[in-house]
């Protein structure tokens, strides 16, 4: 197991290298000039040129890439063109907000989603099933920004129970958590339902019943645990999505997380920050996938890794 994880971690290095090339090249394909934005509307061409020179924007693309990569290996992602703060520092300060949001979403959504899905499967064709799946469809169809705005309108404006913006206390996390979690809850409800239904048809579930096992244990030990494998895959992808995809939530609730940083940086053409963020997002995905692969082995001894 340890060797497997080490090997997978080594494999991420070439993967990240390839990703870095794509990230770097694509960013430079975006039209617009950071030097011009930075200098302001009234700057003379000479001033703009000076800024370009200062940040190395006049160098050939390959040299820029090489400089960037050398910095990266030293743990230096450059400085923000806009604020001149080191990118690592900037991302780290924003990361703490995003991770709070993600955790707030993950505290309840996967559990509720899996619970709904499993109950729907067990009570297939009944009102429980119908109700659960209706909830899931609603959750999937309701866009995050709409949910967020409705939440603010109801809980903040009308009832005055929860703050509508910022991140001061746990109360500020409630509405963002709702927006972040709803999609995950709904997706997992649907996947765990179908996965559970599949497992319930397995012969070993029938065997367990024939042994005289209690229905609750048949459901949990024999069916549920075996149905988890699909669910874990989906959950991994969803968490990866959350870490990079909290843009909307952060914007609605004015939370200075990584998603907002990304949007701001793109409109400013803040190359180093965009690059840094995209690299971090990619790394998150790679690591989460690694965790998922390791979890497979825990769930199913058949695919235990060596």
């Amino acid at each position, binding site marked *: 197991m340890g060797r497997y994880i080490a090997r997978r971690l080594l494999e991420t290095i070439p993967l990240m290298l390839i990703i870095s090339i794509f990230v770097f090249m694509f960013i430079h394909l975006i039209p617009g000039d950071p030097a011009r934005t930075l200098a302001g509307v009234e700057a003379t061409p000479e001033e703009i040129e000076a800024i370009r020179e200062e940040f190395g924007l006049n160098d050939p693309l390959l040299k820029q890439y090489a400089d960037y990569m050398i910095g990266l290996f030293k743990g230096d992602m450059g400085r923000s063109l806009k604020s001149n703060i080191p990118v690592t520092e900037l991302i780290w300060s924003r990361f703490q907000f995003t991770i709070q949001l993600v955790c707030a979403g993950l505290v309840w959504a996967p559990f509720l989603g899996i619970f709904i899905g499993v109950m729907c499967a067990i009570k297939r064709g009944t009102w429980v099933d119908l109700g659960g799946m209706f909830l899931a469809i609603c959750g999937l169809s309701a866009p995050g920004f709409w949910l967020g705005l409705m939440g603010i309108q109801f809980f903040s404006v009308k009832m005055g129970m929860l703050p509508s913006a910022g991140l001061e206390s746990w109360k500020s996390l409630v509405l963002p958590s709702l927006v972040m979690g709803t999609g995950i809850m709904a997706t997992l409800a649907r996947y765990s339902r179908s996965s559970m239904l599949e497992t319930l048809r397995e*012969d070993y579930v029938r*065997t*367990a019943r*024939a042994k*005289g*096992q*209690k*229905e609750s244990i048949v459901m949990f030990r024999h069916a549920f645990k*075996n149905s988890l494998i699909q669910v874990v895959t989906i959950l991994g992808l969803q968490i990866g999505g959350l870490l990079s995809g909290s843009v909307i939530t952060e914007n609605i609730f004015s939370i200075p997380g990584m998603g907002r940083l990304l949007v701001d940086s793109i409109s400013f053409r803040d190359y180093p920050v965009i690059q840094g963020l995209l690299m971090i997002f990619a790394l998150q995905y790679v690591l989460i996938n690694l965790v998922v692969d390791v979890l497979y082995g825990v769930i199913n001894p058949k695919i235990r890794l060596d």
Partner: protein
Amino acid sequence: MEKNVILSLKNVSKTFPVGKSLLGRPTKFVHAVNDVSFDVYEGETFSIVGESGCGKSTTGRLINHLLIPDSGEIWFQGKEISHISQDEMRPIRKDMQMIFQDPAGSLNPRMRVSELIEEPLLIHTDMSAEERAKIVNNLLKIVGLSDKHASRYPHEFSGGQKQRIGIARALTVNPHLVIADEPISALDVSIQAQVLNLLHKLQEEYKLTYVFISHDLSVVEMISDRIAVMYLGFVVETAPKEMLYKTPLHPYTEALLSAVPIPDPTLHKERIILEGDIPSTINLPKGCPFAARCKKCRPECLEQRPERVEVEPGHFVACHLYKK
């Protein structure tokens, strides 16, 4: 010697709904098991044979309470069990275990062999972990595996070994009756013989009663004491093995037996080739279920279901030809 009846089916029928109307009510029913009656005596091997879809597996599951019959009675050790609740059934399962057809599918892939085998003990007894481990290791030895296999997972075994695990699992709680639903048909021929011998050995050792469900007539001939032949959900003939193989009475049994290959190329055998199709189990024929394909069909066969008659002691047949 008076033989004790351990299991008795009385006019058991089971239908499955198919198709749904707009209101979600089933529109049609598959008549899987129709009016099935037979007795199984203690210590014998009672086989149920028939082609695919004839209701033999459904019958096995009805006996095991995995399915509930629509009508009829199932008596096991002097108790009517067909309509009791799952909770009432649970203690009875200790005496009635099942071996399934697909050895790979019927073992939970997440559980170690020891856990799989000891699970019935956890359900039906309150033994300590040590006592359970002792029984598990002993059972593994009995079925030809060793205690070092106990900590492995099912996927690490071959098909024959998996079925041995399935057999060990069924025997953990010392059942009286074992229902074996095509236990060897998923195995290679060489392994089939091994598993059959194992089943035979276990029967002698533990005084087991088998209900053996199979489509393989040569296997059935080898192991059975008595045989029931099923067709379209009906039991058409029940007889001790020698009688059935020597003097099959029902035209369907005759045709079935004529299809068994003889391992001697010089012998030529007259085969009875059945013509026509098996009638649909959704719309059962009004008369004899076999009438449409029977060479000896008479007018009354199309009109009236034949009653079960005892032609010679222990030899029952449901056919108008033998009406008294």
